[in-house]
């Protein structure tokens, strides 16, 4: 073992001048013990129970507000004419956008051979799935008659009624359900070898049984590994266009409508970039406390935080370009509806929403993230991750509300005021998300052990001879 590196000491790799991805001194056994130990330990940290209690308490808000919603109908929300879309769609887009960073990390960065992603890959994927759970709830409960939600799917029925394929809302069903399914499959497939490790290291019979079944009998055979790696690459290759298409389709929900502020071609790329932007912010929100709480600073290093901040800087700049282009087009289109929409966003009754969005999404992050010092300042990044997610929520608020409440006919103008049920449900989903995440870090391997092993220096194969004959001679 090399000398122990103090926690949070800048672990600079002398060859590259970059922070190390894994602290020096780790070997196959130590990473396995460290990660598997968190799951297999019989001493659950008290803080975990406390977290689950708080998050569970917040999550009951979902139960309460959804029960009341089902009893009374969507009238308890602030949605009405002209603001027929409110918190439900804002929260849906916000949550699903958060999920996108998980897929980006697990798929796109895998294709680009960014091995630093290996440590944050698993919990970013978990974040995706739980975010999709929170997101998926909103379209289902906002339909008014949620017990008929299955009508969204094409299935043979006695009414002879089928979905309408020219509607973006039908596309949405396909995009989001595919996204949820493929994310779960990718996540599970990624965990199979780690379940094998947990099965082999578990002491309790129940744990052996549980992880044994989940591992499907994985034994690390080389032929299995090669097929496994092929399947992972294929899934990554498939998830990449998928993740781009999901937020594109969601942006079609807006862009296909003939409403000023929605009907623009810039929506798909700018929605995808915004999704990744907020998703990376959420990864930071989760990674920073977890690495502290579970002492994971040697596996989730400052290099990871620095890189994630760089991705945020890049995607944030794309988002800023999107905002700029929206303003430019509202003037350049020479359409006075577009011009009024933008004026109304900036200086109308809801001006605070727009400037809040500019402040939290553009002004604060895109000026500070250029500094390397701030990019590796854990406390700053933690605060910033909240700021960006607030900003991204306001982005969706501005898009949904300000285009709707003052559309073409001044006689139909109104306003949008969210009710306490809107807020309760939204806050409740944070609790639900946190609950699911806490269960994940307790019962599933939060860092992929097999992928971390691949990054260790011990994996290097030393060649001894040009062909097998010499190998035998040398070894005998």
């Amino acid at each position, binding site marked *: 073992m090399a000398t122990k590196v103090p926690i949070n000491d800048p672990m600079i790799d002398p060859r590259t001048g970059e922070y190390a991805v894994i602290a020096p001194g780790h*070997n*196959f*056994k130590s990473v*396995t013990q460290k990660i598997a130990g968190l799951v297999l330990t019989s001493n659950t940290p008290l803080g975990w129970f406390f977290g689950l209690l708080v998050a569970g308490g917040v999550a009951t808000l979902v139960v309460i507000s959804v029960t009341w919603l089902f009893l009374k109908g969507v009238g308890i929300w602030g949605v009405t004419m002209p603001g027929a879309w409110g918190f439900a769609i804002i929260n849906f887009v916000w949550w699903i956008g958060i999920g996108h960073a998980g897929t980006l990390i697990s798929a796109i960065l895998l294709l680009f051979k960014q091995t630093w992603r290996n440590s944050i890959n698993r919990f970013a994927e978990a974040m995706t799935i739980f975010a999709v759970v929170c997101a998926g709830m909103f379209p289902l409960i906002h339909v008014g008659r949620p017990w008929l939600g299955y009508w969204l799917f*094409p299935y043979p029925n006695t009414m002879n*009624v*089928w979905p*309408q*394929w*020219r509607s973006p809302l*039908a*596309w949405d069903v*396909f995009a989001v359900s*595919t996204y949820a*399914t493929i994310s779960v*499959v990718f996540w*599970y*497939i990624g965990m199979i*070898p780690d379940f*094998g*490790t947990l*099965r*082999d*290291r578990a002491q309790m019979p129940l744990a052996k049984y549980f992880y*044994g*079944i989940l591992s*499907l*009998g994985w*034994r*690390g*055979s*080389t*032929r*299995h*590994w*090669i*097929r496994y*790696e092929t*399947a992972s690459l*294929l*899934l990554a290759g*498939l*998830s990449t*266009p*998928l993740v781009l*298409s999901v937020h594109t*389709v969601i942006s079609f929900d807006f862009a296909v409508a003939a409403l000023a502020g929605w009907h623009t071609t810039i929506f798909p790329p700018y929605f995808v970039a915004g999704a990744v932007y907020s998703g990376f912010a959420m990864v930071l929100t989760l990674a920073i406390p977890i690495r502290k709480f579970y002492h994971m600073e040697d596996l989730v290093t400052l290099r990871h935080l620095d890189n994630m901040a760089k991705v945020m800087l890049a995607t944030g700049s794309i988002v800023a370009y999107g905002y700029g282009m929206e303003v430019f087009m509202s003037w350049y289109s020479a359409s006075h509806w577009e011009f009024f929409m933008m004026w109304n966003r900036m200086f109308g009754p809801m001006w605070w929403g727009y400037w809040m969005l500019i402040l939290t999404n553009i002004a604060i992050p895109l000026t500070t993230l250029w500094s390397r010092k701030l990019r590796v300042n854990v406390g700053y990044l933690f605060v910033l991750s909240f700021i960006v997610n607030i900003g991204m929520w306001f982005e969706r608020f501005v898009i949904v509300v300000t285009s709707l409440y003052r559309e073409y006919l001044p006689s139909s103008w109104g306003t949008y005021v969210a009710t306490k049920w809107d807020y309760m449900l939204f806050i409740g989903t944070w609790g639900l998300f946190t609950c699911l995440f806490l269960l994940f870090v307790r019962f599933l391997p939060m860092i992929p052990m*097999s992928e971390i092993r*691949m990054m260790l220096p*011990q*994996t*290097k*194969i*030393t060649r*001894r001879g040009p*062909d*097998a004959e010499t190998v*035998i001679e040398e*070894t*005998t």
Partner: protein
Amino acid sequence: MPRKEGIYGLLAEFNTPSELVHATEAAQAAGYRRMECYTPYPVEEAATALNFHKNRVPLVCLLGGLMGVTTAFLMQTWIAVWAYPLNIAGRPLFSWPAFIIPAYEWTILFSGLAAGFGMIALNGLPQLYHPLFNAPNFRNGATTDKFFLCLEAADPQFSPSGTRSFLEQFHAVSVVEVDH
């Protein structure tokens, strides 16, 4: 299937991936064919040593994708044109550009499921029992930090004593006999 009896193979344990790869290459050179390496993470060199280059996961994935795109596109066409024709703003019933989007999603859905479950099926999983789990040292290391080479008894060259002395020359930590 009748219960198999006797020796499944000889299992050599190594501390490093290099030793495993050298032993595998040597076993191939010595004419052994029925063998398998077991490693805690994918070791590509071991696959090269085993001459295992191609697998059929991509083919399964492609078939899944083709099935997905055809299913979704034909389903939408049938619904929109024959089963439930609707006049939406005067657009043609066969408005195929709109159908591309669900078809695209199902291409990914079917090919992704085919790749994932196809990989599991081609690997013969789930298989909760395997003779190797009988080896005392296998579960302790194969998924953690040890590298195993198993020369199987089904190989015509295999002989319990000859194969054992062959394996022992590679500085294996241990060579154990694995029963069915």
